[in-house]
């Protein structure tokens, strides 16, 4: 069966660290904030940022909610210690419960999960404002293509270094950057309710989905061609259905154009202009 093409991991790490350095310089701000979930993606982003701008310009936050596992926070502490980062803990459990009660979503784990993701976003953007910082996102390409994220929650960030990096390659980056094995080996999870895993929700795991997404999204092969090449039909159908269903998340908002100067349509401008 066809595989996802390999990537030169040291070059990828070098390039992404340089990207983080340039985005911070161009913004004129002084540091990055990010949420360290205890998972692989945020650990890799933190390690890349350390290479790009140094540990003193990174403010990592552990943002546990009422149902977060203790292990997640322990892993976040482990990553921060390894990278020489001063981890700050903001327990979002109490505000999450108050808000859930106000909104009436306590019993609905999906709504509550989305609420938690958006509370984390709120906390990170607030701290970014206080610290003259940019919010560093931790979404990877596989998640983005599948729309496996909370709109305006974990998906919201100023800078996404892994947004064009397949999850398969995030594992390789994690190995290269020396992320602890316990984090590399555990199942990907948004940790929004006990026992939640990405694969459990999606119905397949990223290592299975990545080659299918690559040959469809990057190389333009259709469903029939993918099956003819040996990918199992049910898996192809499931992956491509998710890929289509959640596409609206790639462009989180649509502006109704009623003039000839609509932002990002008629006027595509640099993000950080300066004299």
């Amino acid at each position, binding site marked *: 069966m066809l595989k996802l*093409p*390999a*990537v*030169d991991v*040291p*070059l*990828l790490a*070098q*390039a992404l660290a*340089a*990207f983080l350095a*340039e*985005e911070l310089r*161009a913004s004129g701000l002084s540091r990055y904030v990010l949420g360290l979930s205890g998972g692989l993606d945020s650990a890799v982003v933190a390690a890349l940022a350390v290479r790009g701008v140094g540990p003193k310009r990174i403010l990592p936050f552990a943002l546990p909610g009422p149902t977060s596992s203790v292990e997640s926070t322990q892993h976040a502490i482990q990553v921060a210690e390894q990278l020489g980062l001063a981890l700050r803990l903001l327990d979002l459990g109490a505000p999450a419960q108050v808000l859930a009660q106000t909104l009436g979503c306590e019993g609905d784990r999906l709504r509550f999960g989305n609420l938690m993701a958006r509370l984390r976003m709120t906390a990170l953007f607030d701290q970014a404002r206080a610290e003259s910082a940019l919010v560093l996102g931790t979404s990877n390409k596989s998640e983005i293509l599948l729309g496996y994220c909370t709109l305006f929650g974990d998906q919201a960030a100023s800078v996404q270094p892994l947004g064009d990096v397949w999850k398969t390659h995030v594992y390789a980056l994690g190995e290269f950057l020396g992320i602890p094995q316990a984090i590399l080996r555990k199942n990907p999870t948004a940790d929004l309710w006990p026992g939640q895993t990405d694969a459990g929700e999606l119905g397949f795991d990223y290592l299975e989905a990545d080659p299918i997404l690559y040959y469809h999204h990057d190389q333009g092969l259709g469903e029939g061609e993918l099956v003819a090449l040996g990918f199992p039909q049910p898996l192809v159908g499931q992956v491509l259905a998710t890929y289509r269903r959640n596409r609206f998340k790639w462009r989180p908002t649509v502006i109704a154009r009623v003039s000839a100067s609509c932002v990002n349509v*008629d*006027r*595509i*401008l*640099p*993000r*950080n*202009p*300066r*004299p």
Partner: protein
Amino acid sequence: MRVGLAQIATCPGQLSHNWQAHLWAIQEAKKADADLVVFPELSLSGYLVGHGVLELAMDLEDPRLDPVREASREVALLVGLPLRLPQGGIANAAVLWEQGQVVGVHHKLYLPTYGMFDEGRYFVPGQRLVPLPWGKGKLGVLICEDAWHPSCASLLVHRGTDLLLIMAGGPSEVGDDHVPLGMRRWHWLVGATAITTVTPTLFANRCGWEEGILFSGGSWALDGRGRTLAGPAPVGEPALLVATVDLAAARRHRSLAPIPQGERWELWQAHGERSAC
């Protein structure tokens, strides 16, 4: 003749930042006794300026170009900028300054508008392809995509070009090799251009990131037989290369391997006539 190739990182819309990068390269080039410094495509404005060209485009009298004019009194400069045209429209231009004067201008002929490129939306294409006369030789200037159409280099050499200068803003991807894919493609192209035109070919590419797009650098200078004169510059890092170009040797190469002189222009002409029908 000593030619500096300035591999610099630029930021769209940050003119002061970009000019500082030019100044660094000019200082280094002066220390290395260069006669000319070649910068990447749209080096002053940054490449991914989008509709920012409406603010950033300049005419040749624009006061924002005063520092370039001044710096050119000490070393000739070939700089990339969005050039406002008298009849309206903006060209993706290369401007050659020497002794405080503009001595040559090339407008990019091929504006890529596919994949991640959208230049046809912001610029108007050039209409002329001639070498720029310069005291030390005739310069054949190609701006990025121009070099991907081999006819451009062939025509320039046919019209008496002594050396080809490619000013690039070549984006790149990371593949399975330690050399970025874009740099590898460029090196094939620069090498093929040098050896098929039997003409020294010098490639100045931008490095770094703009608006989330990676530019890999890898600037490089070759003689007309494919021997390295300078570089390649490292991946992704600013660098100043200086190549010593021997025009007498270049002429000797074209005598020993008269490949460009053998170009069958009648085939091109016949194709053009058939296409016109």
